[in-house]
């Protein structure tokens, strides 16, 4: 009897076990717990109490072993094993759930970090845009005030200062347009006018457009085009934008006597590949990693060349990405750089009227 109470006490706590037995004794009309006989009813009652804590088969065996009523049967052993495996399975499920929770928490934490990072990048971007806008505005304001306050400036100086105001105004306009352009592309609001394009024409037109720039800089510009090329689907004006960006960059970093830039086109499997190669100052590996980022300019602050907006390559890359291609650079400092991009060709299409005869 006391053994049974002790057994229950271990699983339910002594107070609850005592209380349960007391209420059982009352229902049986017994004076106290001690007056109870360890009969079949009590055993059954004890089993049912215990079953809630450890499973019914285990409860039965434990109670039986305490009251020494019957030996352990095979069935009971099997049931205990069943219960044990269920408990095990349940605890595995719990473990799995807790792992899932942990993974979800980590995911949330990661998402939060990415959001913070995005926020920081946006802040940096705005801060840089602000800086880039203020810089040309500084010259515009200073020279406007100088001209206003000095009506007797000599002609040469007046012309020079006005020229600076005009140049810096153009720079400011260009920058604003490019910031808006990039914002439109990145937000998915840019309009794309895709059509079938003969890339050779785009290259030829862009080369014509920059020919004066190259003449002024005394830089040789060569074009190597195949006799035929499959068409690509893209926005012609946007591809012109990319070519003009790459060619004018090449010219900018090619400031030496034997400056030479080559634009070439070739087919590579399912892609057309364009290379713009210069023998200019080249780009260090560290700089190669960042020049496609917004506002990352390298090398031009020391050469005293007028700066670009720092957005050209970022926009170019977005454009090539949009049409399923890739834009990248290979370069060796002191030797030169090659900017390359690919565009997927239209299966089986060759530019009309341009077939090899």
């Amino acid at each position, binding site marked *: 009897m006391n053994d049974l109470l002790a057994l229950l006490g271990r699983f339910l706590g002594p107070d609850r076990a005592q209380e349960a037995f007391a209420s059982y004794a009352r229902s049986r009309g017994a004076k106290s717990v001690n007056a109870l006989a360890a009969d079949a009813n009590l055993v059954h009652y004890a089993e049912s109490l215990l079953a809630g804590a450890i499973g019914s088969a285990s409860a039965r065996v434990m109670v039986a072993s305490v009251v020494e009523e019957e030996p352990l049967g095979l069935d009971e052993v099997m049931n205990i094993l069943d219960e044990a495996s269920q408990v095990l399975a349940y605890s595995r499920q719990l473990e799995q759930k807790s792992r899932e929770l942990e993974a979800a928490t980590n995911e949330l934490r990661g998402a939060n970090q990415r959001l913070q990072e995005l926020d920081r990048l946006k802040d940096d971007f705005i801060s840089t845009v*602000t800086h880039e806008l203020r810089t040309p505005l*500084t010259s515009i304001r*200073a*020279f406007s*005030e*100088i001209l206003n306050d000095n009506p007797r400036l000599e002609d040469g100086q007046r012309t020079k200062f006005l020229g600076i105001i005009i140049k810096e105004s153009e720079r400011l306009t260009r920058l604003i347009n490019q910031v808006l352009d990039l914002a439109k592309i990145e937000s998915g609001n840019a309009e794309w006018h895709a059509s079938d394009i003969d890339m050779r024409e785009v290259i030829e037109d862009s080369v014509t457009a920059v020919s004066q720039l190259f003449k002024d800089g005394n830089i040789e510009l060569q074009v190597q085009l195949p006799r035929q090329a499959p068409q690509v689907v893209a926005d012609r004006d946007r591809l012109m934008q990319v070519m003009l960006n790459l060619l004018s960059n090449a010219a900018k970093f090619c400031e030496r006597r034997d400056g030479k830039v080559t634009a070439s086109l070739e087919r590579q499997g399912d892609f057309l590949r364009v290379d713009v190669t210069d023998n200019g100052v080249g780009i260090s590996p560290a700089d190669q990693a960042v020049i496609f980022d917004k506002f990352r300019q390298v090398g031009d602050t*020391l050469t005293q060349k007028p700066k670009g907006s720092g957005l050209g390559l970022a926009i170019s890359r977005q454009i090539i990405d949009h049409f399923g291609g890739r834009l990248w650079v290979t370069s060796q400092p002191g030797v030169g750089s090659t900017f390359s991009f690919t565009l997927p060709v239209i299966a089986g299409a060759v530019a009309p009227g341009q077939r090899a005869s």
Partner: protein
Amino acid sequence: MPSKILIAEDEPNIVVSLEFLLKGAGYEVAVARDGASALKLAATLHPDLVVLDVMLPLVDGFEVCRQIRGNPVLKNARILMLTARGRESEMEKGVAAGANAYMTKPFATKELMTKVAELLTPAGPR
């Protein structure tokens, strides 16, 4: 003897405007186009005032400011920082680095000249 002013600025056209304004007011002017040459020039010229851009190549304006402040030979140099990043944190950073005054680009030329004259007055703000 005119006060010596060192312009540390990498934007060519802003340099042209600062040179015109400061020379026109009778100051002796030298120009450095990056932070490293600004430090070198400051060490040999001992300028009375450095007009210092924050975003300089090679060594940025804050660092130039700290190094000038850390050089006992240059302890009398006044520093006017110019920045195109109009943030208060930048201004605090400039003051912490030891700048005497701080102006945001674009600046009004008259305000700049008043500030320069103020800084070069012996009793001017330190």
